[in-house]
């Protein structure tokens, strides 16, 4: 087996050194009846060469329609952007790819410095004071934010906007209702619902996504004021990080915690994962923050360096009193995020955001010009919602049959909500070419007519 460096001779010699008759002796603590043979795994094949494995997996891969191979307009929490070739090249450097969490800082400055740079970038994008070195993804980051708010306010209730991505809401509900209470406002596509009424003395936090799941850009200022007036915190959620290049930063609108999905910068679609959770907050809350932190310090020679810090918040030190149970996070996805953003820089990032918005507005105008199709979201960044004259899921299937991936139908996200039946959530990015948009417009016109 190509990955195993020990030869039969090596194994024999090692057993001699250990002074046991055979390998079984090393497993003597395992109850005999629990030891099984090859037959127990009869359903599984023996080892195979690269060529064979590559054939099998390539065949599976060929049964999917890659986003890049067709006109593609899906978003709803995962976005297709062009990632410069140097990003994927750099994250595959052995020293990044095959290293562990930087527990030994003297030989992990590479990782620690990029995490420090990542934290800074996230703080700048979100307009917050501090950010951590990543959580799993946007949905789990949102859940952690709610738990943190419950700890900070010592209040049980979390109020979720109806514009919050339903997968995020479900994730929050699963976790935050264990020790508290979760109230979900009904979804009102294209409207910023009035949440103030739902806040009371019990309320730990308000969770509002902007752009929301329908694409609507929300003004967080009023909700922040409403929350703060009642001693509650505002948690702002962002699923399309690129929007922060054009839209006001949540921090500037009064958010206390920002939980975001970082996938759309530097990371591919990957059928849903791995992604990278961004988490930023106010400096005063840092000791209640979940996740790893890279901090600046000096070495014995006086040189600047970085280390994992404030670990007294973490499970490996505080155990059941930790702020979170997270250990492995999204390290390499942070790196991709950091490199892509370093390449973009301030100028590139805002150009990218403008280009996305421009593409989306043009497309929205053309699509909503189709008879029977109307635009549900008056304001949006690169994603908007349409009302169709037919059930959106069947329309999407019809489009797919024509070789077009034309958005996310409402029922896919709200399976039990008939009122979402005719809604189609459409995203356009810099990767949606003129021709792609033409194809989409023409196909949709056909399908709905």
């Amino acid at each position, binding site marked *: 087996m190509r*990955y195993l460096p020990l030869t039969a001779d090596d194994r024999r010699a090692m057993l001699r050194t250990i002074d046991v008759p055979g390998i079984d002796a090393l497993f003597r603590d395992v109850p005999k009846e629990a030891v099984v043979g090859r037959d127990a795994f009869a359903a599984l094949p023996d080892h195979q060469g690269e060529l064979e494995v590559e054939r099998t997996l390539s065949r599976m891969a060929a049964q999917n329609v890659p986003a890049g191979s067709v006109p593609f307009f899906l978003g709803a929490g995962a976005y297709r952007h062009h990632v410069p070739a140097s990003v994927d090249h750099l994250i595959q450097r052995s020293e990044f790819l*095959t290293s562990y969490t930087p527990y030994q800082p003297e030989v992990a400055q590479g990782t620690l410095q990029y995490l420090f740079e990542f934290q*800074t970038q996230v703080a700048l994008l979100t307009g917050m004071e501090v950010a951590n070195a990543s959580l799993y993804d946007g949905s789990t980051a949102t859940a952690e934010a709610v738990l943190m708010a419950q700890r900070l306010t010592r209040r049980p209730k979390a109020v979720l906007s109806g514009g919050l991505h339903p997968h995020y809401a479900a994730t929050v509900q699963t976790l935050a209702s264990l020790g508290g209470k979760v109230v979900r406002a009904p979804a009102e596509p294209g409207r910023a619902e009035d949440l103030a009424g739902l806040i009371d003395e019990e309320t730990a936090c308000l969770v509002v996504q902007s752009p929301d799941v329908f694409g609507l850009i929300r003004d967080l200022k009023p909700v922040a004021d409403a929350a703060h007036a009642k001693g509650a915190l505002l948690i702002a959620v962002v699923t399309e990080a690129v929007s*922060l290049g054009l839209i006001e930063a949540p921090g500037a609108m009064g958010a206390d915690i920002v939980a975001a999905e970082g996938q759309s910068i530097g990371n591919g679609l990957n059928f849903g994962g791995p992604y990278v959770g961004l988490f930023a907050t106010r400096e005063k809350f840092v000791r209640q923050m979940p996740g790893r932190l890279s901090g600046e310090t000096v070495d014995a020679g006086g040189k600047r360096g970085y280390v994992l810090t404030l670990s007294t918040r973490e499970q490996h030190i505080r155990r059941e009193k930790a702020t979170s149970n997270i250990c492995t996070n999204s390290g390499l996805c942070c790196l991709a995020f950091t490199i892509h953003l370093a390449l*973009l820089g301030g100028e*590139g990032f805002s150009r990218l955001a403008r280009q996305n918005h421009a593409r989306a507005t043009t497309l929205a105008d053309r699509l909503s010009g189709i008879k029977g199709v109307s635009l549900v979201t008056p304001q949006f960044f690169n994603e908007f919602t349409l009302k169709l004259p037919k059930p959106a899921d069947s329309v999407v299937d019809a489009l797919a049959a024509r070789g077009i991936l034309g958005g996310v139908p409402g029922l896919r996200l709200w399976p039990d909500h008939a009122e979402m039946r005719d809604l189609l959530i459409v995203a356009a990015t810099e990767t949606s070419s003129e021709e792609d948009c033409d194809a989409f417009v023409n196909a949709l016109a056909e399908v709905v007519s």
Partner: protein
Amino acid sequence: MTMNTMGRPTAVETMEVPEVRTISGDRGLDHEEPLLFELGRKDMCGVDIPDSKLSDARLNGLRRKEAVGLPGLSEPEVVRHFVRLSRMNYAIDAGLYPLGSCTMKHNPRLNEKMARLPGFGDVHPLQPEQTVQGALALIAELMRWLTTLTGMPAVAMSPKAGAHGELCGLLTIRAAMESRGEQRRRILVPSSAHGTNPATAALAGFAVDEVPAEPNGHVDADALERMLGNDVAAIMLTNPNTCGLFERRTREMADAAHKVGAYFYCDGANFNAIAGRVRPGDLGVDAMHINLHKTFSTPHGGGGPGAGPVVLSAALAPFAPLPLLVHDEKGFRLIESPGDAPPNTKPFGRMCAFHGQMGMFVRALSYMQSHGADGIRQASEDAVLAANYILASLKDTLSAPFEGPCMHEALFDDHFLEGTGVTTLDFAKAMIDEGYHPMTMYFPLVVHGAMLIEPTESESKESLDRFIRVMAGLAIEAKSGHKERFVGAPYLAPRRRLDETRAARKPVLRWTAKAAKE
């Protein structure tokens, strides 16, 4: 000195090596590297994106007022920046990485290549199911491998890492309890457990009771049985445990737990010691997470991402979280709402958006198919063999708290350093000078100055012998009083010892223009 006509010397002058202080601050191939924010310039950009002028009509008056403040760099500068940073890291690809409990094994590049096939890497989680049948088939195939290897009937795929899998497992248990109308709130966790275990239990709303360890490193099964009661929701054991030992009395403890109506959660982080030889399902396990980034070698990437699927017993299977993957005449389908869930199932909720770490799934399956059932067993045996070889070779020079044989990792304590003035930390830092990444230090907590060494199956005998020679040599130097080699170490790494206390006292967690000016 002899020279040729171009004034080029034709022979080498040898002389003593002076202490060289460089003007640049760089030293040979070791370059210092500033922060991105110290390198960037305003008008520079590492991408070419046409500018689009646009109206604010659709921005709800919320166009960003202040510039984000990101530095501008050209592509060559960005590439150089990260290449230089990378060169300050230790990696498996560059050397033995004996970080106990972390399983730093070889990361095959085939798996990276497969994960990047457009059919896997460039598909959206919400694409119509008929356009992702191959991706769903891959998940199903991986589920088949995982359930077969563990001997368990079901597996939940969405957890994003081990700790997330623990949470998923405990929430499944909680749901099962509640469906029985019970509200049990206690979970028994051994003192040797990894920090994520108690942390997860607390997160899931349970009270944690610590089960003591026996002097031999095993969980005190008698104590555990005494602590069991009908207020106990579950026992949470790690097997093989964090001392690198297989819990002999697992089955017993499982039965005892089941007897009082509790469940048995097994931390499967160390599954790599027994995969292909032992099926947790045969040991009475009800739920166990598998760190694909350990046992099945998806790269650790400096801290992630990983994946932590949780295998479940028949008793817990019905409570697995959404989404569920089913197969019928129409092919593979994802069930995303309780409403659509099969009759006798009660999904407890959702662990996260979408359906798990696909990128890791591809890598793990590629790894499994490459090894095959025979190779997976051989890998486990080699991992255990290597650990025991190290234990046997070093137990007299260093000090081992427990008798062998061990499983996949060899545990030492700092007894052998007594009176030397050298600590486990110092010893670890001296290993860095020797070109080795240190083992896991000060974990598990049940032994003093713990040194947990996991060589994995990826090292050749020559490599292990070399490591043993160096470790023994260091031990002897420590005992013979060469304290300074240790206490000030490392001397030869990109940085000398870093001040963690200072970092925590007044945390500097980001770059700011203001601080930079000062």
